[in-house]
């Protein structure tokens, strides 16, 4: 048993270690150390919590047991999960944080004495508001993340689900949360608490179903942010500094990532949240019926072009993740490098299904991180490059974003692959990307389409180099 002041100091220390954990991510060299700080902070927080409980009952055995069970499951998942499934994993983990926040709030509501918040039926007003907010945001995070998980996993269709009056329903439900919290505070009645949580779960579902697959990077970042705010809400209830600091860190981190993702697509946060983008409806309208000539080639043609180039830029996209083509791609690059060809990679901020998705996959394939460049750093190089090898990306290269104000992707920053002497597109078909927009690059004179599975095509090219 240690004093409340001492434990508060330790919670502060663990909060600071969490800040250092994030700080470490500013470069890959310091990142591993950062992760270690994070682990250390967590160990301190958990140990101190055990030390503050005065009479440890037999319950401690169960606590340790459940800790080990959860830890074993977590460790198992962490080692087994393929890197391509990272977006789903992160969405799934967010849902757990959300649900844990809900459970802690419920527990605090049922047994407020344990947290010094008053007694059942007579909980301090401020604590009641704090735990309600924590529970509501936690519940939204949970059900929203579950929907995001199902969509990313492909169990649920990635296309947006919309119905008439959707926004109105959401608005009414949102307002009702506040009304319920108000009545909960005035009456302390349990039924208001439960209905508030139930409605929050519903909001989480309704909030995410109208959002399409291509907007998933924003959704994941947003849910990341929510899980932070939920933790902060609970932190206020428990008067715990470590939780408050962490909640604020995670909340702002998720918010910044959402902002970066929205900027990468040149869309406002609200238009993403309101959803309905990238559905079948747009696909049908935008497609032009007239058949334009397309040059298509095979692996031999591609290998010939690549071998005779002196510089190549690789543009990976979600298709590479789906086909798991990152290892084959790296082999191809190795073969090219042997022929003294300069190769670099260009990653668009919203390539893939979550922030940094492509970077992780390339790192998995042992691509050195200093060969991978962000949009702003490499965009000027396309003009001096012989071949752009676009593998599984589409919308992020579409010049229509610059030329056609009518296009839904107009204004989105794109990778200027069109400026390369020639462009190779590895793609399964001519179908438009998630935004439902035809890519005019497909029909250019200097574009060669390689219709195949990304992994198979890349392997075939390697054989031909």
């Amino acid at each position, binding site marked *: 048993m240690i004093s409340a002041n001492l434990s508060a100091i330790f919670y502060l220390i*663990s909060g600071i270690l969490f800040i250092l954990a*994030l*700080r470490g*991510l500013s470069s890959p060299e310091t990142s591993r150390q950062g*992760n270690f700080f994070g682990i250390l*902070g*967590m160990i301190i*927080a958990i140990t*101190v*919590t055990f030390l*503050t409980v005065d009479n440890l*009952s*037999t319950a401690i055995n*169960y606590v340790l047991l459940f800790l080990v*069970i959860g830890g074993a499951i*977590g*460790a198992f*998942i*962490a080692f087994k999960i393929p890197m391509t499934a*990272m977006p789903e*994993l*992160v969405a799934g*983990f967010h849902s*757990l944080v959300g*649900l*844990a926040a809900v*459970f*802690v709030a*419920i*527990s605090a509501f*049922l*047994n407020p004495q344990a*947290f010094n918040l008053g007694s059942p039926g007579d909980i301090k007003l401020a604590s009641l508001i704090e735990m309600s907010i924590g529970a509501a945001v936690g519940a939204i995070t949970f059900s929203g993340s579950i929907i995001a998980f199902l969509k990313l996993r492909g169990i649920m269709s990635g296309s947006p689900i919309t119905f008439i009056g959707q926004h109105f329903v959401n608005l009414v439900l949102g307002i009702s949360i506040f009304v319920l919290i108000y009545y909960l505070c005035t009456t302390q009645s349990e039924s208001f608490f439960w209905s508030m949580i139930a409605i929050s779960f519903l909001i989480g579902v309704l909030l995410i179903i109208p959002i399409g697959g291509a907007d998933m990077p924003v959704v994941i*970042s947003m849910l990341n942010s929510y899980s*932070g705010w939920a*933790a902060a809400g609970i*932190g206020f209830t*428990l008067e*715990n*500094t*470590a*939780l*408050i600091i962490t909640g*604020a*860190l*995670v*909340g*702002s*981190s*998720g918010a910044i*990532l959402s902002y*970066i993702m929205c900027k990468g697509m040149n869309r406002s946060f609200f238009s993403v949240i309101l959803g309905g983008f990238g559905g079948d409806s747009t696909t049908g309208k935008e497609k032009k019926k007239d058949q334009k000539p397309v040059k298509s080639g095979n692996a031999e043609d591609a290998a010939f072009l690549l071998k005779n180039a002196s510089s190549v830029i690789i543009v990976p996209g979600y298709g590479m993740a789906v086909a798991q083509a990152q290892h084959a791609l790296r082999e191809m690059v190795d073969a090219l*490098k042997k022929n003294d060809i300069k190769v670099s990679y260009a*990653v668009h901020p919203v390539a893939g299904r979550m*922030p*940094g998705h492509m*970077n992780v996959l390339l790192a998995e394939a042992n691509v*050195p*991180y200093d060969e*991978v460049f962000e949009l702003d750093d490499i965009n000027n190089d396309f003009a001096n490059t012989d071949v752009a090898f676009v593998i599984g990306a589409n919308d992020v290269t579409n010049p229509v974003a610059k030329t056609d104000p009518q296009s839904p992707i107009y204004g989105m920053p794109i990778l200027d692959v069109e400026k390369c002497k020639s462009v190779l597109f590895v793609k399964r078909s001519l179908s438009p990307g998630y935004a439902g927009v035809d890519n005019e690059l497909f029909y250019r004179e200097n574009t060669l389409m390689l219709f195949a599975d990304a992994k198979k095509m890349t392997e075939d090219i390697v054989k031909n180099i």
Partner: protein
Amino acid sequence: MEIDPFIFRFSIFILSIFVGYYVVWSVTPSLHTPLMSVTNAISSVIIVGAIIAALASSSGNIFETSNIFGFLAIVLAAVNIFGGFLVTQRMLQMYKKKKKDKK
């Protein structure tokens, strides 16, 4: 006039948002995925609430409803803590610099 302790906590909260803002902007974009998994892991520090909830016993019965919710929250948060940190570690280990000769 005394200041409500809530205001102090609120100050910590607001200042932490600012710290988070500046720290996260300095994260290199190529590490955004590890950033998400590590933030996910650290937000599971909510486990401290779960432990308190699980260990609280007013009546001597350690399996009251509030305790059970505490236990459940411990499992969920523990999955996240171990899963989050380990998967981050796994990812970070893959980020390597160029080793071989440049061309």
